[in-house]
Every structure is written in C-alpha cells, then in structure tokens.
C-alpha cells in the first residue's frame, strides 16, 4: 500500500538524508493509517510479491477452474470484547464478510481461529461463540473449519479471533481501488464514527455515557442490491480502521486521482459529533464496521444511491464527494466556508485496537 504524498516523493528525489531508523513495531503500525501502509510496503509486499497481492484490495481474487474465488482474512483484537451493538464474535463475521463483499463476492464459507488466554471465562467464550454462530447464520455463511490455541496467562489479552472467508465473484463484477476516474461520485452508505465511539465509550479510564451503538453489520446483501442496479461501480471499501479518510486516501493513491469531499454532506450522528468534540477526535478517522464507500460512474450515481437507501443499512446514504484530476493522491474537503483543506491519512494512532 503506497501512501506517499507528493511532498514526500519530492523529498526522496531532492534529499538523500535517510529517515530515522524504525527498529520497533509501534501501536501505530496497526492503526490502518500511514504506519500500517509503510509496514505493508516495506516488509510484507517485498516478501510475498505477486500480482494478486499487489492489487492491495480488501480481498484477493483468484481464478480457479474458471471461477473467480475471493479470499480474505482478518484478525480481531477488539477491546473490550463486548460493546453496545455487538461483540468480538459478531464482529469477526461481519469484518470478514464485508471484506469479501467489497470485492463484489458472495460470501460462502468462513474459518474461525481462537487464541484464548489461560484463565479466560468459559461463559464469556460461550457468549462469543454463540454470537459468532448467529451472525454467520444471518449472513448465510457457514463456519466450516477452525483452530484453537491457548496461551499462558499474561501472554494474550483474553481472546483474539481470526476468521478467513471464501466467496465467489459473479461474472462481470470488477471492483478495485485503482479504478476511480475523474468525475466519479463518492457514495457513503450512512453515518460515520459509530463503531469507534461505541468502543471508546467502554474503554477503561474513558467511560462516558452514551446511547451510541456499534454499526457492526454484514454488507454483502446491500452490495448485491447495488450491483443489481448497475455494473458501473468502480470500487467499494468499508471504512474500518483509520476511518473514511484513510479509505479514501488509499483509493486516491491507488487510482492516482484526487478526491474532493463536501463537508456539509457528511452524515454524522449528533452523539458521535458530541463525543468527538469532547475527546478531540475527527469522525473522519474513527472506525466503522457496517458502512461502505462506493466510487460510482457519474451517470449511475443516483440509481446506486437510491438502491443503497432502499436497504435499511443504507437509509442515511449520501453522495459525499467527487473524484477529480487535480492533486492526484490527495483527499481534500470543501468546507462550508468556501475554503478547501486536506483530509490526510491518519499518521499515528487515534484509537488503538478498535477492530
């Protein structure tokens, strides 16, 4: 995932001074922002180089006997394990199902691996597994294989879950982050920041009272409905870690285009706005687990928007911006004041471990 800004690229051309050595992993490397992108670019991509991986989408799409198979994997380390609107079990289904759905795939099968810390409550494990089972049933996917490991007390943090998902991509569907073109519209399926704030409100030391629920949900049905309307959807992403800003920055970078958002069109719940105001956070960087961003050809944008809004998960959908050819690789935002500012990728870690 290359996330260089033009300014940084200039730096490499004009100045040979190396950046300070990075010798340890920091929490920010897992934030989904710039440090994560650097880690992927510097360590993982060179090691596993291949054309499928190089697409850097949320899922890999491979050809097997004429079928296009989508594969994805995701690890869940959310803390706390239980939060308003879900728990690590339901999240482990939704997260992986959504990564398949963003490639247009119909999710079919999941694996589930549990890394459990010695001393973990059996009752809590049951609740998590039950919720995972229920979420899978609702999404119409089967958990067909799994693994269990127990680590010594103090060597884990209660419970980590990894899920891998497999699905099939229907013919004629081709969604990828490098397909955005100037003039395309940016669609967002609903309010932002709900998941991150719901989690944050539960954190030790930060408890505040709120009615905000995580938006954690499986989006593949919504995606199928959107693709039923048109195939003029270029790309879809679910703005999880790093929020809407990081997702759009990735798309801008991969497609070598600029994206301009309209600040007044961003759907943000009043309570999320209030919590962000209080905690000094920007909702554009806060995680979502049941929202998608679609880049759609301008002529199809309205029809797709209507399709999203017909689904209960997309009732608050909006067109939030337009793809342009100015400032390739940069996301900007038009403020209500008529001025423009950059919407940067998250540099460090805004909220650690939210998914």
């Amino acid at each position, binding site marked *: 995932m290359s996330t260089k*800004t*033009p*300014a*940084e690229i*200039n*730096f490499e051309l*004009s*100045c040979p*001074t190396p*950046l*300070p050595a990075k010798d*340890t*992993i*920091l*929490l*920010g490397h897992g934030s989904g922002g*710039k*440090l994560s992108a650097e880690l992927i670019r510097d360590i993982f991509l060179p090691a596993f180089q291949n054309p499928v991986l190089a697409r850097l989408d949320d899922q890999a799409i491979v050809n097997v006997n004429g079928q296009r198979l989508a594969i994805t994997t995701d690890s869940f380390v959310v803390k706390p394990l239980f939060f308003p609107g879900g728990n690590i079990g339901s999240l482990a289904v939704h997260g992986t199902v959504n990564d398949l759905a963003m490639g247009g795939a119909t999710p079919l099968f999941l694996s589930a691996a549990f890394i459990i810390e010695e001393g973990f409550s059996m009752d809590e494990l049951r609740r998590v597994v039950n919720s995972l089972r229920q979420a899978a049933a609702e999404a119409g996917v089967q958990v067909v294989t799994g693994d269990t490991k127990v680590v010594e007390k103090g060597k884990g943090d209660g419970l980590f879950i990894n899920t891998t998902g497999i699905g099939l991509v229907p013919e004629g569907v081709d969604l990828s982050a490098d397909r955005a073109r100037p003039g395309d519209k940016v669609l967002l399926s609903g309010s932002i920041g709900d998941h991150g704030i719901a989690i944050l409100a539960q954190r030790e*030391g*930060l408890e505040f009272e709120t009615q905000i629920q995580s938006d954690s949900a499986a989006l593949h049905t919504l995606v199928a409905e959107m693709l039923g309307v048109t195939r003029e959807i270029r790309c879809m992403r679910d703005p999880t870690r790093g929020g809407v800003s990081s997702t759009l920055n990735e798309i801008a970078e991969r497609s070598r285009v600029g994206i301009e958002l309209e600040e007044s069109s961003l759907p943000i719940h*009043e309570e999320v*706005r*209030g919590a962000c*105001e209080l*905690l*000094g956070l920007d909702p554009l960087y806060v995680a979502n687990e049941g929202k998608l961003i679609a880049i759609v050809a301008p002529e199809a944008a309205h029809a797709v928007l209507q399709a999203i809004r017909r689904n209960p998960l997309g009732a608050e959908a909006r067109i939030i911006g337009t793809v342009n050819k100015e*400032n390739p690789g*940069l996301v*900007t935002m038009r*403020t*209500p*004041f*008529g*001025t*423009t*500012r*950059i919407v*940067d990728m998250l*540099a*460090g870690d805004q909220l650690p471990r939210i998914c």
Partner: protein
Amino acid sequence: MKYLDEYRDHRIARALAAEIVQLTTRPWVLMEICGGQTHTIMRYGIDELLPRGIELVHGPGCPVCVTPLETVDKAIALALHPEVILVSYGDMLRVPGSHSDLFRAKAQGADVRIAYSPTEAVKIARSNPDRKVVFLAIGFETTAPANAMAAWQARREGLTNFSMLVSHVLVPPAIRALMVSGNNRVQGFIAPGHVCTVMGCKEYESLVRDFRVPIVVGGFEPVDILEAVLMLVRQLEAGEAKLENQYVRSVSYQGNISAQQIMAEVFEVADQKWRGIGLIPQSGLRLREEYAAFDASRVFDLGEMTVDEPAECISAQVLQGLKKPTDCPAFGMRCTPENPLGAPMVSTEGACAAYYHYRRHAVAK
C-alpha cells in the same frame, strides 16, 4: 449542537469577513496565542477569508510544543523504570525527546497510559499500590487546576505512590516576553479563551497598558476567531489599545475563582523553560514545598539533563510568530508528523502540524 453550530455558521463568518475587509485600510500583524485557535484557522481556512493585509501569525500556545525536551527525556526515563506507570495526555506520547518518544518506550515494555483527566492517574495509583504512578502534568493555565486537583486529592488520601512531573507554563509572561523582544512584529493579540476561562480577563490588563497593544480574548470556533479579528482591526484602525472579551459565553473578568484557589494551593509561580524559546522569568508553575512528596523530579533521582534541539528545527521562530511553518526548508520534507524534527509538527495543536494536515496542497503549488 448548541453553542457550537452557530459559531460554525458560514453565513455569519462571511458577513464578519466582509466587515473586516471593509474596515481594513492598511496591513496589520495579529497573533492568535492558542494552538487550538491556529488549528481552527487552518481547518476552516479563516486566513483565506481575510483581506491580504491582515497577517495572522501563530503564537506559543501549544502546550505540547513548548514542553522542554528535557521534560520529555525525563518522562521517557521514568517510564522505563519497571515499577513506574507513566500516565500522560495522549498528545505527549508522540513528542520526540532527544533519542526516543513515549510510544517507543511503550513498545520497549514501558507501562505508558493515556488519560483524558489527571484524576484518572490518581485512580490508577489507588488501584495499583505496588506500582509508582507518575502523571506528566503539562499545559497552560487551562490544565493547571485539574492537575492541581490530582495532587491535592492524592495528598488528602495519603497516597504514597503518586507523583507528577510538572511542566506548566503561563500565557501573560510569554506575551510580555514577545513584546519586549527586539524583533516583535505583533500589533494585536487574540488571547486564549480557555486559559481566560480559568484566569479571567484581568491578567491581560497590564499588558495592554504597558505595551499599548490591543488584546481580545477569543474563542475557538471560526466565528469566534473572525469576530476577534474584527474587534482587533477596529481598535487598530481607530488607534486604540483596549482589552476586550469576545468569548463572553465562557470568560468573565475574574475567571474561575475556585480553580484559581486550587492552583494557588498546590502550585507556585517559578521561572520556566519553554521549548524553542528558552527561559522566561516567572512564566511557569511548580509544586509548592508542601507537595514535595508528589513532585516526581524530587521523588526520583533524574539528575540534571540539558539537551539541544535539532539544529534544523526553526520552531523557536515559529512559536514567536517570526516565521511561518512553511518558511522552514524541512517542512513536509525531512519534518512530517510521522517523523517530526520538532514538537510543533507533532501535536494536533502545533502550528506546523496544522499547516501540514490542512494546507500541504496549497504549499506544493
């Protein structure tokens, strides 16, 4: 949101901007003291709404930016003690010390925790009696009362495992230092609304009188800033120098008396070093003698540290309003929020970070 949306209303903002344009007959250099105000200016592009002649320069009011390098180094050294839990406001974690930062210390195994309130640190101390909890108490008059409250509470409870590494700074002495420095360009100040919520407007009267400089206490939303600029321009154009309060919904003349009392009970005024600027007499707070047992610099043997800033960083000039972040050759090149050379690139309130986050595109063109 009440008290927020109306201060972000673009119609009101544009009307104020139009009035400023109409009123301005010559160039004026104004300084907003607080980093929160700088952030708003960059985020909403307030400077783009102003007439060309009005120059906004950014003041030293970013608490993270002016915390001395030595304090950061001491905090890192403390955090690496195995028995210590270091509690800090989140922004301090990424501030580079001379060799490391608190995030890196955390990655090395240090127990570093983020709190939104210093009383959280007291709570942590209470529930971890076998550990030593150190709170990194930094900031302006805004955070001082809550930090004082933490020490007061710890003393009342007789906690023996709680202490604070204090680096507190005060605004009025900094304005005075700017005014007496030979190269000052500032003709009017927007004083920091939150600091004044605690301390009141009264502290700024002598500055207005001594230097015949207009000061307007201002808020943090776009409409607040534009209104404060309008009030300053109106005074300057009329040849006046008065203390005015734009942020009346929060600031009174006397300020918050109970907050001032707890500050006075726990802290005393002392000379203070400001990162990038140097020592300013009587510009900081330290714990009083009665609170020595809660002073981390006395509880722990930290030795004297003196360290030099990276030579390339021009934060000194930036924090004094002499240069804009974009005047720095390292800006956006060798100095970015991921690899900051100096503190103003780190904090969300830092002037360099505000320019980098919101304006890079305009600079590159």
